[in-house]
């Protein structure tokens, strides 16, 4: 199914993906073993579960899609892992735990779970724990529902591990992880994304005002003045922000709009400090892209662990990385043909002038159905996860 979100956990050992069918698949990085010292730790499937089912809103006579819009990991506190996953309307807290023992010898039920006849219970025994094959289980612990009129587009966990935010286009709700029937709510302009700042841990005060909450709204505080000469019918649509990410260091913020990625210094709201053109050659195709709805595609962007490189997706299964210090940019492709295991990815190029060189792709031959919207970068290492429609690609830096 089509992958709709990708997220590493805090250590990078786990990678969660959500898809359009409401499923969550978690990959775990295998530890390097003595027998394979050169393998840098590959990711294998750890757990798969159905997080959301399609629902029907009786009041509005509309279906509620089960597509997972966002997954956020909670910081790990014990052996189990917790994550929040959300579709358009409902957020669920899942516990993923390993089970390698099971209890046997219940008094009231048989081994297969059927209730025993009461008169057959002639003695009391204490159930014992017997080892079993290691199994990873996912169980829903909380369900946070009925708090969003519009589609939930982002969630963010606070560093106090107790509260989190959920946002739809107009409303932001602040939840406590233990409480499912109540949340604080604020109404806003169009909300694109919501994040807790990771630099200031303001503690556990319950009033939302005290959290250092950073928001990105449509006509944002951070806004570059428009260049009047480049104005077109589609200016507003292409300048609308599809993703916001704060740098790990906390000083910068990156916004993704349709054609570019901008890096902002949080202290300066007037203009971005860096602007990177992702696929400027599309500017002359805006009408066609509007007609086939591609202009509304919401691309994500991400930082590497050191905030020195940023990455974002494009069409034709291309994704781009930009090195901030050297101003070097690379275009790579996530496809089966170009990704043999252990092979180095070859840089791609889109031909923007009349003459097409060998191996270049012309703009007209780009496949706009192959879009890379969701990407994630390992928090500390140079490993990236790229979702290309219904395939997940993992690339890592080759160390010689």
């Amino acid at each position, binding site marked *: 199914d089509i992958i709709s979100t990708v997220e590493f956990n805090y250590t990078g050992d786990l990678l969660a993906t959500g898809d359009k069918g409401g499923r969550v698949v978690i990959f775990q990085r295998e530890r390097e073993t003595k027998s394979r010292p050169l393998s840098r730790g590959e990711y294998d499937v750890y757990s798969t579960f159905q997080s959301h089912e399609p*629902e029907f*809103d*009786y*009041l*509005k*006579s*509309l*279906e*509620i*899609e089960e597509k997972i819009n966002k997954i956020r990991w909670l910081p790990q506190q014990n052996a189990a892992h917790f994550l929040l996953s959300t579709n*358009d309307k409902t957020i669920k807290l899942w516990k993923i735990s390993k089970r390698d023992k099971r209890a046997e010898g219940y008094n009231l039920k048989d081994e297969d779970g059927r209730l025993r006849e009461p008169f057959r219970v002639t003695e009391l025994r204490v159930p014992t724990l017997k080892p079993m094959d290691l199994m990873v289980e996912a169980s829903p612990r909380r369900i946070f*529902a*009925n*708090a969003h*009129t*519009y*589609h939930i587009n982002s969630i963010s966990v606070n560093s106090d591990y107790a509260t989190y935010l959920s946002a*739809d*286009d*107009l409303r932001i*709700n602040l939840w406590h992880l233990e409480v499912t*029937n*109540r*949340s*604080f*709510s*604020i*109404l*806003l*302009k*169009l909300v*694109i994304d919501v994040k807790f700042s990771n630099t200031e841990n303001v503690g556990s005060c319950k009033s*939302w005002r005290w959290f250092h909450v950073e928001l990105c*709204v*449509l*006509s944002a505080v951070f806004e570059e003045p*428009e260049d*009047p*000469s480049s*104005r077109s*019918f*589609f200016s*507003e*649509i292409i300048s*609308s922000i599809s993703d916001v990410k704060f740098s790990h260091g906390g000083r910068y913020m990156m916004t993704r709009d349709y054609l570019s990625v901008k890096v902002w210094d949080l202290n300066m709201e007037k203009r971005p400090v860096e602007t990177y053109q992702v696929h400027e050659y599309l500017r*002359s*195709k*805006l*009408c*066609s892209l*509007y*007609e*086939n*709805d591609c202009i*509304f595609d919401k691309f994500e962007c991400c930082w590497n662990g050191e905030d020195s490189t940023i990455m974002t997706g494009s069409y034709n299964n291309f994704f781009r990385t930009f090195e901030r210090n050297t101003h070097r940019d690379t275009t790579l492709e996530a496809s089966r043909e170009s990704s043999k295991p252990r092979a180095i990815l070859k840089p791609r190029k889109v031909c923007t002038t009349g003459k097409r060189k060998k191996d270049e792709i012309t703009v007209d031959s780009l496949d706009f159905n192959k879009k890379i919207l969701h990407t994630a970068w390992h928090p500390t290492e140079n490993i990236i996860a790229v979702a290309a429609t219904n395939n997940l690609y993992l690339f890592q830096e080759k160390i010689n």
Partner: protein
Amino acid sequence: MLGRGLKRKLSDYEENMAGLSSAFDSSRSLPYPLKRQLVLNMCLTKLQTYKMLVEPNLHRSVLIANTVRQIQEEMRQESNQQPVNICPGIAPASHSYTGMESPGISLQLPSGIGQQESHCCDLRSVEDPIENSLLIVSDDDMSSAISSILKDLDFVEDISPPTCLVPTGDDQPKFPENTGLKLEDDRQDLKGAECVFGSFEISNSTSYLKDLAIDDIFEDIDTSMYDSDFCCPPLTPPRSPSLATEEPLKTFPSCNSSSANNIQICRTDLSELDHIMEILVGS
């Protein structure tokens, strides 16, 4: 690219649109009004034919609606510059479009919303000097270009070459403060606008989205336990449904079901309401 024919199916229409949009992109010689009309048609198609199984994305709908309004305001301003006067007694001006600040407004939106809308309006009222200089198109040229496009695309059923462009009655339902407007004036203006563009319905709806959607959509959800004491300003009751509900109900699906349901809920028994709430909470 533009075929001739009487009736078109939607798929043919889409093919034509695809052809037109690549013409838009590649051709520099396509006259501006033609380009603009093409974009307007696309916007209206998107808003009208959006699949209604799933709730439409608000962000996308707002962006499309804003594009429509941007184009319509441009057209209106052009018509203001024309010597031919249109309907008497109505004098729209670009600055009056930022109707949110006008007195007499019966809705009180969260301030953020107001700013959002007026910002959008500001964005559009900044006239591009380059674009302005291109608007040296005569009435007749423009209207015949428009009517030929519309004929070919079979967009509006019965079109006659219009002598006046934008009927300024177009504007009336956009401004929430004109609650005193008589219903007949509405209908008459409706008809006039429909003949020319067929886009009058959408201008109704866009204002509906802008002004009503927030309050009315939230009306049917009991958020009393979710709202904290400091948050949004009090939401006033919905306006009289007669003003703008008829047309948008046909053309703007996302507001459609909400407003219809609001009216329904107002008429529902308390016991039915309880039952519904049980389903909601229990689901």
